[in-house]
């Protein structure tokens, strides 16, 4: 007996600072002007996507002591863009990455609760951590957080924010014009939090918002990240990988939920995925090869190698062989403000593997970077891509995807116009929004005030 078809969740990531956006394409527009965000959001809503996603960066990246200038540089403020997008959309969820290191819970909780009110229940928070002193140089706190404490602070930040969200039950405002009672509870919003990272008390000043709390996302693949997501998140971003690896990740993360008294459907797994479409599979493959060449110039390839080597490699020829010297294993001083640097935890092993692969395939530096670093997730005709996405979801390799186009802001248009109707025909994707809030779209319950599902309810798991 076959099980019922899973419904696919789709979301869109506005291409921000990365090396995958082809900014030189004639179709490429502004990554800052509001019209770009409005276009992108309207396309996502037309396609009945669950949400739009914005990433964050708090310091311009540097390489070799200079501001990195080869990729898109610069981005607007996340909260401000999302609030403005609430004005030009009606259903689309609005997800923002907000750092738990260089912010304070009272302020972030205010901003998310406000965004949830102003969007009538469409706010979501991707909780991320950061620790480096490099980013800290832009903030009052400076580089104060040891790396090993970042999840400890993130967990406590989130549980503190949840205490603030839950400090209003939602029925306190009576606003009875006859009797003159505005609040039925003088203590509305009262909170006391004493912890390792935060020791705060008072009254939260944003009454309970339509979703109660924003939807919580967590990105990251590490052991700590998986555990954090299982304990506290509504959805997790993972990296797109093969069907088998996707299934292994899915099984692993979903199995962790029971430890926190949660059901498997209380955490959605949504990998980020790029795509290239063509009229035929062959045409899409050809187009994808072109896009990869444009994403990785010779100069970009050298810079990418420096993430691993931690050395100035500017003297190397990108069309030549890989460096035969080994990476510098000291503190990473060449590329700063780069998440990618942290991906290569064993630079010697990575360098060895890359040299072997390049030699075996007769790849230049640039070929190697293209092959290892920028393969699109879905390449094919709309029919092929729709079928592949559906296969991944039905086979429990994911619950859907967060799509990242390589052109701003029109890169989502063709997907909305060609792939989405095919998914709808397959009966695995909504044709209309059924609810109004992001929790509705994601099939998540609205939390009761005071009912924590986070680490706070399981003090034994809090690393404090």
């Amino acid at each position, binding site marked *: 007996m076959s099980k019922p078809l899973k419904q696919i969740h789709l979301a869109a990531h506005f291409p921000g600072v990365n090396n995958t956006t082809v900014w030189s394409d004639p179709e490429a527009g502004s990554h800052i002007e509001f019209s770009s965000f409005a276009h992108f959001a309207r396309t996502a809503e037309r396609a009945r996507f669950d949400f739009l996603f914005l990433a964050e960066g708090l310091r311009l990246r540097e390489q070799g002591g200079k501001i990195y200038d080869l990729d898109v540089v610069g981005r607007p*403020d996340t909260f*401000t863009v999302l*609030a403005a997008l609430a004005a030009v959309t009606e259903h689309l969820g609005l997800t923002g990455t907000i750092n738990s290191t260089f912010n304070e819970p009272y302020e972030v909780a205010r901003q998310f609760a406000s965004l949830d009110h102003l969007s009538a229940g469409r706010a979501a928070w991707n909780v991320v951590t950061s620790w480096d002193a490099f980013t800290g140089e832009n903030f*009052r706190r*400076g580089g104060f957080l040891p790396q090993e404490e970042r999840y400890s602070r993130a967990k406590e930040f989130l549980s503190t924010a949840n205490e603030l969200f839950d400090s209003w039950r939602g029925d306190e405002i009576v606003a009875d014009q006859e009797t003159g009672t505005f609040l039925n509870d003088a203590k509305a919003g009262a909170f006391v939090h004493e912890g390792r990272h935060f020791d705060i*008390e008072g009254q939260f*000043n944003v009454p309970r918002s339509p979703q109660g709390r924003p939807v919580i996302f967590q990105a990251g693949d590490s052991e700590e990240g998986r555990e954090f997501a299982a304990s506290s998140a509504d959805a997790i971003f993972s990296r797109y990988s093969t069907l088998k690896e996707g299934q292994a990740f899915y099984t692993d993360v979903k199995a962790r939920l029971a430890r926190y008294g949660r059901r498997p459907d209380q955490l959605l797994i949504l990998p980020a995925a790029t795509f290239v479409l063509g009229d035929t599979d062959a045409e899409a493959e050809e187009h994808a090869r072109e896009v990869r060449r444009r994403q990785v110039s010779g100069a970009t390839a050298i810079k990418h190698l420096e993430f691993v080597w931690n050395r100035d490699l500017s003297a190397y020829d990108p069309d030549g062989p890989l460096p035969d010297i080994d990476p510098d294993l000291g503190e990473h001083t060449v590329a700063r403000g780069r998440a990618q640097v942290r991906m290569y935890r064993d630079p010697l092993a990575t360098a060895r593997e890359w040299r072997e692969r390049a030699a075996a395939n007769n790849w230049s530096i640039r070929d190697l970077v293209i092959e290892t670093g920028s393969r699109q997730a879905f390449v094919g005709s709309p029919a092929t891509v729709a079928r592949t996405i559906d296969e991944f979801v039905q086979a429990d390799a994911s619950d859907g995807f967060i799509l990242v186009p390589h052109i701003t802001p029109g890169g989502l248009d063709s997907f909305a116009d060609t792939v989405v109707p095919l998914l709808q025909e397959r009966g695995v994707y909504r044709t209309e929004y059924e609810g109004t809030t992001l929790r509705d779209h994601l099939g998540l319950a609205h939390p009761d005030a005071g009912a924590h599902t986070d680490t706070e309810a399981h003090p034994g798991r809090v690393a404090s």
Partner: protein
Amino acid sequence: MSSSPSPLHLAVALDGAGWHPAAWREPVARPHDLLTAAYWTGLVTEAERGLLDFVTIEDGLGLQSSSFTGPDGRTDQVRGRLDAVLIASRVAPVTRHIGVVPTVVTTHTEPFHLSKAIATLDYVSSGRAGLRVQVSARQNEAAHFGRRTFPPLRIEDYDTPAAQELVTELFDEAADYVEVVRRLWDSWEDDAEIRDEATGRFIDRDRVHYIDFEGRNFRVKGPSITPRPPQGQPIVSALAHATVPYRLLARAADVGYVTPHDAGQARSVVEEIRAEQRAAGRGDETVHVFGDLVVFLDDDPGAARARRERLDVLAGRPYTSDARIFTGTPAELADLLQELGEAGLSGFRLRPAVAGHDLPAITRGLVPELQRRNAFRRAYEADTLRGLLGLARPANRYATTA
């Protein structure tokens, strides 16, 4: 000195249901809607219908209170509010001309975050953003952040040396804060994004600058992550009642809100600010000084008085304010504004006592009256807030390649 295209400038200060604590009990008030986008959109579009220069949006890091020092535990007044920057951003795309100026607190928040938020507000509004800076010495608000503490500060102790020291410190910090925000706005030159295919460079890194700010309370490296906003420098404003905050206006602001109760006071406040401006080396720059007034406006002067009395009864005490409280007709208010204008104020920030009543009375009563007197614009004459205020787009302090 003023190249202002409009004889008088007009702004409104928006706060909940209005500035009178019983405003929410008026039939026209919509007390259940105060936390909705529709409520704020309605107010700001009404202000735009009246061709006003801008709206300010009040905010604070604690629950509203009738007490100067902290929470009052009252349940008969509006409590709870939304973040003002996000309200401003939510209404920006549905308006076209009016400036949006949210209140921000400099004492507990990060200038780096705020700078990019206001720069982004300038992008989403196509050049209509500003901010109003405020300091907070409240102990309860400090406890919401848990990173600094303040001694108790009662309003009657305001003139003591200890209180003055604290106030001076907070305003000095606010001046540093504004300096950081302004440097970050300039940290990208206007043409830093080059998209040069020949060299593969997206930006010219020589046109993006570290700000390297070092002050008493914080250091900020920069540059901003957000490119220079459309106005170059969005409008910086602050409310001031005494010499220390006047100095902040003179050193750091484009618009100051002051609270004179007659033309004589207006004249002396303006003189004091101009002297501070010269001392700060900004004698040649336009710093608008706006008078703040709470207004009860009705076509029948008796109706305005009766409304104010009715609300005072509901509130249980007569309404008092730092600002002069005007009760009367649009024509009477126009007389007063012109008189104060002649004393040196270049504009006014009106605080509607009841938002749902007095805001439309401003836009549909006062504004036509001022237009009849050729004292107010008949159409928006500029696309940006700086343009409306007669302020040029400033050069970038870091520009070397112009």
